[in-house]
């Protein structure tokens, strides 16, 4: 019943669907290509591969390390992959921007400041993404996956800021599978996932569970629509753990939506008005 992993024969179609969706949106929006913020992690590696398949030469990978935080290995992986995929890239260190923006803060506790600066880093990258996108008439191709979107494990208007989420309906463990199928080097696929916000950070340590556990729980709650109690019984996990993840999903709905508009008219734009983005 818990069938998260794709069957082998599903993989070519999954890849094709995502590639087509990127291609169509870029074409329909009148853009010329796509920008991918590229960390050398598995998500952005897969997105870069898919974007390359969809857009050919018209993509640019932005490698935006933070000196002192981004591991050398990530940079090496990133360079290796852009070369292998023959993707144009720029390297932009974000330290100066982070430092200067940090000076803006005139109040707040130490802890509060620290928290805002962790989020500042992806936001700096977002600004650079959109500067490139505007300049080149490209779209920003987001790298968030379904696990992150559900848990709210991403920075609002930071790494979550994008024009499309091509892998946003793939759980992390599915991303691994599709990446492997797509031929992303094993050491990237198998690398311990990290948001890279501080030195030595790992996602699984920060969230408190392994991705395999998280995905099983999310799959039960979201795809199978099971309750917390049923999920904990089926997976033999403590209900506190399941509930913890469930609450994260609930609390982070705001990160999956545009800002709520206060309704005044009969045609409130986020509630009553329903037009597709890709239209004639």
């Amino acid at each position, binding site marked *: 019943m818990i069938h998260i992993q*794709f069957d082998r024969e*599903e993989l070519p*179609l999954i890849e*094709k*669907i995502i590639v*087509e*969706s990127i291609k*169509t*949106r870029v074409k*329909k929006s009148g853009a010329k290509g796509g920008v991918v913020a590229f960390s050398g992690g598995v998500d952005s590696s897969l997105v870069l591969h898919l974007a390359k398949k969809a857009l050919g030469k018209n993509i640019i990978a932005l490698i935006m390390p933070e000196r002192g935080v981004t591991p050398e290995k990530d940079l090496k992986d990133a360079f290796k992959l852009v070369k292998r995929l023959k993707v144009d890239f720029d390297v932009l260190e974000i330290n100066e921007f982070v430092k200067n923006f940090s000076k803006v803060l005139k109040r707040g506790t130490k802890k509060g400041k620290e928290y805002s600066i962790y989020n500042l880093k992806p936001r700096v990258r977002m600004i650079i993404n959109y500067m490139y996108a505007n300049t080149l008439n490209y779209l920003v191709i987001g790298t968030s996956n379904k696990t992150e979107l559900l848990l709210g494990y991403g920075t609002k208007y930071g790494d979550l800021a994008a024009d*499309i989420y091509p892998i946003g309906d793939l759980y992390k463990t599915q991303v691994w599978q599709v990446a492997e199928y797509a031929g992303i080097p094993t050491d990237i696929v198998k690398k311990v996932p990290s948001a890279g916000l501080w030195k030595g950070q790992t996602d699984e340590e920060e969230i408190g569970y392994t991705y395999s556990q998280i995905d099983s729980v999310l799959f039960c709650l979201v795809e199978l629509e099971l309750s917390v109690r049923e999920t904990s019984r089926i997976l033999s996990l403590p209900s506190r753990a399941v509930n913890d993840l469930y609450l994260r999903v609930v609390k982070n709905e705001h990160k999956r939506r545009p800002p709520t508009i206060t309704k005044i008219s009969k045609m409130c734009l986020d509630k009553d*008005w*329903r*037009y*597709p*983005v*890709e*239209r*004639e």
Partner: protein
Amino acid sequence: MKKVKVALLQLSTRLGAIEENTKKIIRGIERARKKGANIVVTPELATLGYGSGDIYLDKVSENLKAVEKIKNKVGDFYLILGYVEGDNKGFFYNSAALIHKKKIIGNYRKVQLVNYRIFDEKRYFKPGNKMPVFETKFGKIGILICEDVWFPEPPRAMALRGAGVLFVIGASPYERGKDNVWVNYLRQRVYDNILPVVFCNQAGCQDGVTYLGLSMYINAQGEIVKKGKLTEEDMVIFNIDLDEYKRLRRRDIRLREVRKKVLEDLVKAFEEMTDDTHSI
């Protein structure tokens, strides 16, 4: 052996792009005619493009003009065309027109509108209540629209009214496992009624939704005789044996022995279910 040649236009219709869709349909008709098709079929809401959201309401008259234009291209053959119908009361329907020699000789309104998950048809359309069959020179045919065939009643009604083949036009999106779902439903209706079933589905990707394609012809024995490509545009051409079902029905009681008393009790059971306000 009585045979009819059918061409399914598995199109990727674009949202609200009536001109583009009309051109595609006309081009498809011309290609199908060159191959000698007697019956040409489009997907659901082909003039406007399924998934058009509030554009459905904005462009009804433009879509009706497109129907006129397409109608004039239909000579001595049949076209089953998905479009938005407007009645003289100001209501709209998700409909299929049967066109022959530049005339609409039959019209069917979807009876089972879909309103779950991404589907929102009741926002725009009024459901039909009639399950007619249409006389053609190849005998009587039934036309169904997508979800209609997930219910046993509409196909059954058409079979009872003497349809020799059922045409299902659809716009069913891809999601994991959906291909099997369709094969199962279509085949089930074949088994219920001992009739060939033809399915013409939308393809292509827009607004992040990829349509399944996979148009197909299942003969009265339940064999998939011909299948369209997954998710891509395609034209599927085949001959239908219009006598096969009669041969199969000689020693098969499934349609012949439908009993009025049973149907009456079915209606009673339905009324009991819908009037359960007093039960716990």
